[in-house]
């Protein structure tokens, strides 16, 4: 059914707008008309048998409709055509309601609710995972620190026992060796003197033998002293080796602790990086689906209204108490009366396009209903 502009009807996109004497500033800019919350308060009367929303005919039709529904109406519209028109307008109203609902769903940001909840879940899970990683790192550091203390205590105890043993068991068995010279043999002095014989030669020999024995004892003592010194040197070396081994143990243990700490830090960094990557991918997926839904909504609204809504509205509201339009929301400058007028104009526009007036159309319909 073609619509012809004129008779205070203007075409805006796919919608014919009734604009009786309205200025440009008061003209409805929204392509999505909305139904007032209380139509009755706006003199908007709808009855079950009146599809023309309160346009009460001022006079009855001059020509009664025939039983066959044929011609005879002043406007030249048959009953079938009127019914089709009513159906068309009803469907158009439904589409307008659908467009209005979708617009509200889109501009009000309601479609973001599920995505925001998903993002919050992701953020919460990220915090939980981050905390778990931090907890694992703290436990690792605690184990590293406690393990170091335990290992150091164990190793030190082993070397302490060794040092105690070495100190208590100085290995120098030559220290007590003393080379002694035996007593001089009897020179038979008394016996020789009994016969008036001097013992001087005997004493001289004994002294020579004693001297030789003393030299032998001295040599042995030197040997014992040398062995004793070597034993002392060995004991000192062993004690030094023990201290060196303990120092090496503690140094190595400290290096291992540093290495383990570094490994824990690397593991934490890798885990956090993996977590960040996973969170990013999850958020990316949610945002991707959100964007796809927004595009789908915008396309649907555009198809219904003939104009693309302003893109935006991602996330929650504007926070101005709901007075200002949300980001991406269509600007609504028309009054409820103007909106109602536009809706009515859309209803009568087809009839006007066929040469009749809205009043004539209503008159005919009311006449058919016996009013």
């Amino acid at each position: 059914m073609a619509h012809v502009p004129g008779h205070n009807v203007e075409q805006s996109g796919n919608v014919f707008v009734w604009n009786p004497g309205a200025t440009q500033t008061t003209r409805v800019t929204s392509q999505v008309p909305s139904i007032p919350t209380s139509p009755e308060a706006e003199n908007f009367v709808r009855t079950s048998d009146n599809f023309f929303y309160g346009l009460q005919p001022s006079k009855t039709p001059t020509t009664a409709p025939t039983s066959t529904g044929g011609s005879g109406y002043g406007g030249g519209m048959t009953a079938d055509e009127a019914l089709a028109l009513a159906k068309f307008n009803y469907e158009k109203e439904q589409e307008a309601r659908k467009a209005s609902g979708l617009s509200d769903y889109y501009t009000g940001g309601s479609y973001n609710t599920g995505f925001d909840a998903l993002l919050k879940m992701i953020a919460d899970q990220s915090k939980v995972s981050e905390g778990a990683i931090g907890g694992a790192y703290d436990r690792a550091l605690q184990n590293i620190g406690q393990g170091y203390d335990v290992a150091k205590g164990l190793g030190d105890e082993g070397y302490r026992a060794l040092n105690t043993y070495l100190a208590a068991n100085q290995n120098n068995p030559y220290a007590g060796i003393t080379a002694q010279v035996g007593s001089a043999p009897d020179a038979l002095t008394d016996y020789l003197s009994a016969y008036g014989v001097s013992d001087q030669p005997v004493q001289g020999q004994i002294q020579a033998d004693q001297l030789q024995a003393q030299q032998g004892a001295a040599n042995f003592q030197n040997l014992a002293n040398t062995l004793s010194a070597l034993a002392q040197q060995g004991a000192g070396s062993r004690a030094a080796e023990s201290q060196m081994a303990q120092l090496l143990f503690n140094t190595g243990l400290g290096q291992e602790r540093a290495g383990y700490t570094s490994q824990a830090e690397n593991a934490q960094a890798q885990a956090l990086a993996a977590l960040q990557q996973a969170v990013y991918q999850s958020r990316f997926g949610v945002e991707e689906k959100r964007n796809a839904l927004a595009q789908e909504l915008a396309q649907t609204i555009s198809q219904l209204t003939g104009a693309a809504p302003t893109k935006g509205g991602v996330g929650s509201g504007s926070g101005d108490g709901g007075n200002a339009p949300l980001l991406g929301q269509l600007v609504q400058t028309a009054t409820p009366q103007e909106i109602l007028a536009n809706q009515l104009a859309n209803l009568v526009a087809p009839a006007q396009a066929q040469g009749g007036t809205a009043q004539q159309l209503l008159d005919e319909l009311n006449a058919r209903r016996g009013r």
Partner: protein
Amino acid sequence: MAYNPADYEARRRGYTQQYGATSAMNAYANFLSQQRGTRERQGMTEEYNKAQPRVVSGYSRRGMVGPNVRSGLFARGLQDFAKQRARSFSEFDQGQQEQQRMYDLTEAQRLEAFRNQLADMESEKAQTIADAARQLYARRAGAI
């Protein structure tokens, strides 16, 4: 290497038993040697005590010694007897001394070796404990 105290105790016991058994055997041998030396010295003393009168009687039969007779040969012979006796005892005593020193030296070396075994074992034990501590640390730190 895992720390096994039973292994160290067994080794320590083995070292000690070996050293103790050898020491006891050597000490007994040394005791027997000293006892034998003492008997030999007593025999030497008896022999020289018996020989003394025979030396004088020999010179006496040849008229080299007697009342108012004191020959130079007798005096020299008696001095030689005394010198021989002194030399024999000196050599015997020195031999006994050297034998005792060798025993003492051998026992000191054996004791040193025994103590070194124990000290080596204690050092090894400390090192094993340290290695075990590091392995435990690695497990605690999750490196194993």
